[in-house]
């Protein structure tokens, strides 16, 4: 799926750093010489709500929004959120999904159950499903907040930019003191994807 234009849909839960991840990805594409547009909604969505970002790159990008059915890549920071936004994917699109489960209020208070068989249901949506444990990777670096850069690293494996673009973007966007751990997180994310032979 590495190509000259593409649509990347990012989905997560407020507080997971999905917006910062999309910043780094967007910046990386600009550094890589692409036109980029990126859209998200701030405000109410910050408070534990679903957070989504539309990221589009190409020689020239018009719409800042991705149409449902036209995303090349879905990057989901939480398992159920992957399923919620799976309809944005193209039939041949790929999904990088963090296996972490975050209970929404209705589940946390026992009024509903967290949906079952999500992995199977996602596999029915796309043949290119990459289910990874980004939380474990971040925790092994002793930095739970680095889940987002693990996801960027994993997603990068399916995107057309050289690694340097992401690292430059990351250095440009993050405070100096957390660049190192986030660089490690990025590489850990890439490493999670490598054995799967993805991105050819």
């Amino acid at each position, binding site marked *: 799926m590495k190509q*000259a234009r593409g649509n990347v849909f990012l989905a997560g*839960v*407020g507080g997971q750093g999905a917006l910062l991840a999309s910043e780094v990805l*967007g*910046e990386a594409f*600009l*550094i*890589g*010489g*692409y*036109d*980029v*547009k*990126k*859209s*998200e*909604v*701030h*405000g*109410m*969505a*910050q*408070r*534990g*709500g*679903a957070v989504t970002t539309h990221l589009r790159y190409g*020689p*020239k*990008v*018009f*719409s*800042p*929004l991705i*149409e*449902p*059915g*036209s995303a090349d890549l879905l990057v989901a920071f939480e398992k*159920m*959120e992957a*399923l*919620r936004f*799976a*309809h944005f994917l193209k*039939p041949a699109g790929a999904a990088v999904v963090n296996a972490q489960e975050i*209970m*929404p*209020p*209705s*589940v*946390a*208070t*026992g*009024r*509903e*159950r*967290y*949906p079952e068989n999500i992995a199977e*249901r996602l596999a029915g*949506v796309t043949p290119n499903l990459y289910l990874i444990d980004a939380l474990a990777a971040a925790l092994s670096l002793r930095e*739970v907040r680095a889940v987002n850069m693990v996801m960027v690293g994993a997603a990068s494996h399916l995107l057309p930019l050289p690694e340097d673009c992401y690292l430059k973007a990351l250095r440009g966007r993050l405070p100096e003191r957390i660049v190192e751990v986030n660089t490690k997180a990025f590489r850990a994310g890439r490493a999670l994807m490598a054995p799967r032979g993805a991105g050819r």
Partner: protein
Amino acid sequence: MSIPARENVELLSGNEAIARGAFEAGVKVASAYPGTPSTEILENFARYPDVYAEWAPNEKVAVEVAQGASMAGVRALAVMKHVGVNVAADPIFTASYTGVRGGFVIVTADDPELHSSQNEQDNRHYAVAAKIPMLEPSDSWEAKEFTRHAFALSETYDTPVFLRSTTRISHAKGAVRLGEVSESSIAPGFVRDPAKWVMLPDNARRRHVIVEERMRALAAFAEEFEGNRIEWGDRGLGVITAGVSYQYVREVFPDASVLKLGMIHPLPSRLIREFAAGVSRLVVVEELDPHIETHVKALGVSVQGKEIIPIVGELSPGIVRKGISGEGIPVRPFEILPGRPPNLCPGCPHRGLFFVLNKCKVTVAGDIGCYTLAALPPLKGMDTCVCMGASLGNAFGIEKALGKAALGKVAAVIGDSTFLHSGITPLIDIVYNRGFTTVIILDNRTTAMTGAQENPATGRTLMGKATRRLDLAALCRAVGVDHVYTVNPHDMAQTEAVLKRELFREEPSVIITEAPCVLLPDHRKEKRPVYEVIPDLCTGCMACSKLGCPAIEWVPFTPEEAVAAAKAPSQKGMARINPLLCDGCNQCPPLCKFRAILEKKD
């Protein structure tokens, strides 16, 4: 294939681009009240050198400050969300008459789809009603360029200028080329000119004539403005559009002819006629109201608009495609899943208060802020929410309608920043007109909903300077409230005792709940305990779940699982505290009759 990296090009949000444009235009004074989706404009502008930027208590003040700076001959900016223009409308309508000296631009950031607002009003109507020109960029690149244009226009035509953004412009990022700073040619200094600045009826009458002449001149300018342009393509379909809708049209109909409007008031009638004459099918694609469509129809030109493009909500490429061609791309049905509505943060001090209010079974007139989220289950602690400051007036109106029957049954709930924005005058009304409405001010020491901005009660300014911290209790006493009490909302027993007493007081009273927002850096740095549920002690009674805290999770049991966990087979599950989310607020432990919630030992 990719295009080469470009010099001085950055990826900026529309808001960052507007801030940059104001800086490049030489703006010296900027004032705003935070409001989604406009907030980041002033936050970014404040970081540029040699500028003054401030949070005003409300949008009316912001406009008046910016207008004053313009009177004194410097370029000035006022920024607000769409509903903020309602608050500021009074000075804006007369600023149209006075005109400007230094360029004066008012940014209105509209919120089609109500991502974070109480309505989705279309502020293009304000441009028409106030007779003020309005520019509307369609991406970050134009957001910066149009901001610069707006200041030049303002000085050339002696008028305030509206710059209209929408959520998808303000919060979308795109490439922007940074430019040089260009100063205004106007010399700073207030020049006495009563005929222009003193709007006594006789002066204002003469200014109105000037306003009408100005709008005619601007209508002529609109025909030549480079931001209004025809992109000829296939003549079979011609689309008139503006703002982000232009991008959707270009995306889904790359071959169509497009009349792209950058100035949406006044509209270029000659250009519209020329375009209409050159295409066989003419469509207007615009979000919300038929502003352009109405103008086109008034020219006697036949056009399709709101019969095929929705009037409600924001547009998208798919909606535009479907509206014009009737076709869509294949999309799999989306899954029905448990929702993830926004929620109060773990450890939020508001949760304690609303839990108590819920228990007291009072009618709660609410307001605009994070605490509006307490209206959602399981707290369901709010019964009304209209606009900034409405809670006090609404509660007092309920009191007056019901008389004595309202005693002990009605409260108004309002945040610190919202109270200072427009809660003071209705508090005066309650005192002046001998009410007994209980007012609760939720003082979390920040303007939380919009991302933690300073306000007069925080003791710091937008530019990071320490300042006098407004004393909320003293202010309430000064307007005549004799009963002002401060409580810690995390201590629900104390909060409940004070609330029950004040609700039944036959005089006005104010309760200030004081505890910092959990998002504030000082609070985040603090080391606090994390709580845990001792599984052996939890009976699954769900008392703690009623807080609706995201850190408290419910682990459901089947009868077999219950038995395996050494519980009665009838126990449906048990509570668990997510240690990654727990903020250590200590609200839940006292709710557990079985003392199953304890501090977690490392």
